[in-house]
């Protein structure tokens, strides 16, 4: 086994998602042998990302200011909100070019196995936004898997009394999947063919 800084680095890398012990070791030794300037740049980006990037006060997408780029864009419609689980899903939907409204990022999905309930998600904040009265339509674009479907149903039940139009992305997305991995065409089609959600 290794000791000191290199052992710490392997430990830290191994904590990252998708990186097993072997990859952690490989990356650690790559960094050890890399050009000092490259490593300094990596270190400074890591620090900057925590210092400068924060979450949008309105939609909880990643932002470099109080409000994110999308929330600040006056050309986008205030009448539609697309609800997604993660900031990476915002990117996926933006790529389709089909959507010109605003977003709301929940920060995950209801998942009792991981101890995540409605209170751990930005659901209260979503309800506040809806009460402002400007929003007419809500598109539930949570992942097409068990937890995403449950979250969509929960939101639909919650919002039903408010009389908004609530739609769910059309099926055709790979079931059990991740929005992030749906290709642009499939996701675009799912947007066009969204259906109202009866609960």
């Amino acid at each position, binding site marked *: 086994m290794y000791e000191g800084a290199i052992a710490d680095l392997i430990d830290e890398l191994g904590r990252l998602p998708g990186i097993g012990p072997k990859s952690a070791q490989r990356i650690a030794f790559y960094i050890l042998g890399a050009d000092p300037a490259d490593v300094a740049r990596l270190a400074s980006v890591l620090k900057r990302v925590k210092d400068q990037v924060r979450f949008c006060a309105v939609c909880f997408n990643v932002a470099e200011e109080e409000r994110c780029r999308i929330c600040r864009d006056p050309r986008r419609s205030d009448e539609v909100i697309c609800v997604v689980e993660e900031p990476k899903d915002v990117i996926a939907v933006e790529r389709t070019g089909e959507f010109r409204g605003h977003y709301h990022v929940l920060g995950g999905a*209801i*998942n*009792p*196995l991981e*101890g995540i*309930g*409605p*209170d751990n998600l930005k659901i209260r904040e979503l309800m506040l936004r809806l009460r402002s009265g400007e929003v007419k339509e809500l598109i539930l674009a949570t992942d097409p*898997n*068990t*937890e995403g*479907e*449950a979250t969509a*149903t*929960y939101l639909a*039940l919650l919002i039903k009394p408010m009389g908004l139009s609530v739609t769910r992305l059309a099926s055709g997305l*790979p*079931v*059990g*999947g991740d929005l992030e*991995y749906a290709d642009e065409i499939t996701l675009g089609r799912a947007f066009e063919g969204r259906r109202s959600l009866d*609960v």
Partner: protein
Amino acid sequence: MRVRRLELTDFRSYPQVAVDFEAGPSVLVGPNGHGKTNLVEALGYLAQLASHRVAADAPLVRAGAERAVIRAVIVHDGRELLVELEIVPGKANRARLNRSPASRPRDILGALKLVMFAPEDLSLVRGEPAERRRFLDDLLVTRLPRFAGVRADYDRVVKQRNALLRTAYLARKTGGGSTDLRTLDVWDAHLARHGAELLAGRLELVDVLAPYVEKAYDAVSQGKGAARMAYRCGLAEDGDDVTADRGVLSARLLAALAKSRADELARGSTLVGPHRDDLALRLGELPAKGYASHGESWSYALALRLASFDMLRAEGTQPVLVLDDVFAELDADRRERLAELVGKAGQVLATCAVASDVPESLHGARYDVAGGEVRRVR
């Protein structure tokens, strides 16, 4: 459908092996513990994404190796399909179809349709309800691969719902106050939807399969009592019939969940749904479990597999039939009868330790399995 070639890397006892198979009957002969079952187990795993012998994947990977690879060329309707599966214990399997990665392993289900009878199947008759539910669900997936998704969705919903109930239960026990149960309604709705789908599939399957079971049992046992089976559904109180209508089933599941909610909260787990059902097997007037003799139980288990095979064939697929160590259990008469019954299969792979146990009519190709090698000798 048939398997043209099987290649294994670090699967069970095999560091590396490749076997070419032909249509018709083949026997795999070799001493005990030399890897006959390991070969057919690999085919079974490709067909069901589960082993018929173990629940965990670790024993499937050769001791000392990190991953196992099963690779098979399947011929179906004159076309060849290369199916590859990499098993890494503790991680998700990875599958490829004709060299392109499948987005999920379960996308390969249906590529190889296979019915296997093995000594472990005695537990279909004598074991717990879970064994019989698995029999039904595996067959359901072989028959209609989309049920792999239904089954996975249902299992996931039950897991999530149980987690929620358990948290609530623990919170109450430790006096931590009430847990958030607003989401329970949502899980109820999803359990009812997926549960109804799975239930409808099972009910339909049992309806179709039951006459085949009766016929097959009759054929292997030469008629001593009728083998009848019926789906035993928790929704059917006082033995009233449960129809396979999804809408009705879903409504009944919801009603049953509402009725048992207090009970479920008190016990911290899901007490309603197809994960609690059973398949009732009767022989004459008596239940098979607990009453049938060893020979009768064994014939019943065999009948369940032969019936599955006959049903799939009648519905237009020609599954591969695997008979692992079956003939040693039978007397000469029954051996001949079984050989006759399965002779019509497009491809039969039979394993045995003693070649003479397998009737002549099944001696198409013969492979000797010994010392980690598989040699075609005829």
